[in-house]
């Protein structure tokens, strides 16, 4: 029983990071650091991603 709660908690934290795109943002920071680019702000990064995605329609089914 003791192992269950921490596992649930870490699972939730993992899900939260996935949903919010935290991993993706950190990967972007890492890539920028590798190439020596300035990373820009998180807001700009998210907005650029959203705009690029808008050009590709994602279907929704019935």
């Amino acid at each position: 029983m003791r192992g269950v709660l921490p596992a649930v908690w870490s699972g939730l934290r993992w899900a939260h990071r996935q949903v919010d795109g935290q991993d993706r943002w950190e990967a972007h920071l890492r890539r920028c650091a590798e190439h020596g680019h300035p990373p820009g702000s998180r807001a700009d990064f998210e907005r650029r991603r959203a705009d690029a995605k808008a050009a590709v329609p994602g279907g929704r089914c019935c």
Partner: protein
Amino acid sequence: MSRLQSDAPEVTRRRPSPRSVVVWTAVAVVGALCWTVLALSRGESVNALWVLFAALASYAIAYRFYSRFITYRVLRADDRRATPAERYENGVDFEVTDRRVLFGHHFAAIAGAGPLVGPVLAAQMGYLPGTIWIVVGVIFAGAVQDLTVLFFSMRRGGKSLGQMVREEIGLVGGIAALVAVFAIMIIILAVLALIVVNALAESPWGVFSIALTIPIALFMGVYLRFLRPGRVLEATALGVVLLLLAIVGGGYVESWGLAESLTLSPETLVVALVVYGFVASVLPVWLLLTPRDYLSTFMKIGVIALLAVSLVVARPVLANEAVTSFAREGNGPVFAGSLFPFVFITIACGALSGFHALISSGTTPKMVAKERQVRLIGYGGMLMESFVAISALIAASVIDQGLYFAVNSPAGATGGTVETAASFVSGLGFTATPETLAAAAQAVGEESVVSRTGGAPALALGISQVFHEAFGGGLQAFWYHFAIMFEALFILTAVDAGTRVGRFMLQDTLGNVWGKFGDLSWRPGNLIASAVVVGAWGYFLYTGVTDPLGGINQLFPLFGIANQLLAAIALTLVTTLLVKHGRVRYAWVTAVPLVWDLVTTMTASYQKVFSDNPAIGYFAQRARYADALATGELLAPARDAAQMQQVVTNSTVNGVLQSVFALLVIVVAANAAVVVARALRAGQLPTTEEPAVPSALVEPAGIVVTARERAELDALRAEIGVRTGADR
């Protein structure tokens, strides 16, 4: 051919452990027991849990054994090959995505109102035909289609269904498929919108809470764009809280004096929806579409989990018969036609849905991290949708049958009032009194529940009953509107996204003729294409709403057949591909569901076009009303000559469309037959599959990773020396 398997090291068979033998034997025994109970109980009350567990045990076995066989033997998914997500990663559409996150994405994209509504309507034939088709259909047809289309599209850089048909089958088939996809999408959007209109008409509570979803979504859009970009969970949590407040607030519209102005006629709602659809299609996606999508995804997953838990807690008893007389005689009031072929048409999503082929090719394949994950995402995702369909079937089967038929029969049959509806339902052989029907409406805070067709109100009644039994607390009206809200949310998301996809398709296609129109950032082009798409589904929506015979009754079969014909195109493609790849030996995996699908849909199409029974055949119906109109006679439920004319026009349009759909599919199938014959003669044919590129990514294939798999993966990582992905 299986001897070539040595190229895939992890597939080598291991002797199953004693524990696994015991577990799977137990699952098989539970499944067999549940099915036996369902098969043998006649005329006694059956608990819904037998249906639920029969389905779950069958899914588990199918996933464990059949999907593994398809992925490893038939398709030979190979984790040493890089997927398009890895090869072309661009952070936009090509993106390596964690398998669990992608499962959520894919499931949210395929499952909407379809698996909720079809089973509700099909419950008029009893619970058994629907249950069997949903479970057997998904295992051998629906999930197989989703999995194989996903796989083949992934091997081709994420090409769309239409593109693959054109390149692998031929130009004629490709054009037919493109036209079919577009036309089918229009019908699907119209029917979905019709369901919303029927659920919201004359319901101020519903209109209030659904209308509020628009400002809520706008708020979330601004929040995510400017206030806290990226914080999806936060924004969605706020959105869900506001949404619940909107539902609660709806209960007070009367005391706030808003009831009158929010009681909208179906015609007004059609105009509102068409305007909304147009605006949503031209607005930037981040403002309305994306946040609405987040809301509906989280609501979807939450409600389904809640429904599963409450079914187990409430353990409701099924109120309908296993197989009703309507199934045998085909004279049911909800939709006409007998069990074969109409159960297989009415329940599309949840068992086999062609529309999924558009999601499985295109969006999802560009995000798969490893080839073998297609099993979890394609097959597993569809099993999950099937589970939603089973839950909906149960919810529709637990409500009182008198009530079920009063709600789902068209106004032309019930007369629209509680008195006439009660006598109509009694005439069918069920018990209903004006008092019980009025009480049912009052319990959920509605003016009336008579002839609220479309499936959504009936399902909401069922869900509110189950939740009420499970959690108590006198919240039935809240749960009813909660269920209506969540269905409307899915549908509006599908309508937004579908209109946009239709617009892109139209612009893309016309762009071949007139280059400028293909430029997606050209404003006039956007406006024109959006108007055309909205106008097209708006037309069918309007005819559905005003149809004297009941729009759902008339249009739902067209919707179901269209969806299954799209499945026929998808299954034709994958079968052709198996043959072209020289894997004839395994072609039965997709060929058998293809043949079954063609037999049912072609029979249904034939009946809808040529049947001389006016309740079934569109042209027989047309002739009956046209003849009467010529002699100046009025046929119920039409009330004047204009309505007679309307029936004549609608049945002609529907009949012609029905024939065109069937013809397009025959063209694709004929073109494919030629290619298959050539491939059989040659042994195999070249395809557009991309050459293998070695992968530098190591990720597990399933949700659960055993200790042994983890060790193997670690060893592999050490060997190729690299990138661990998002895996913990």
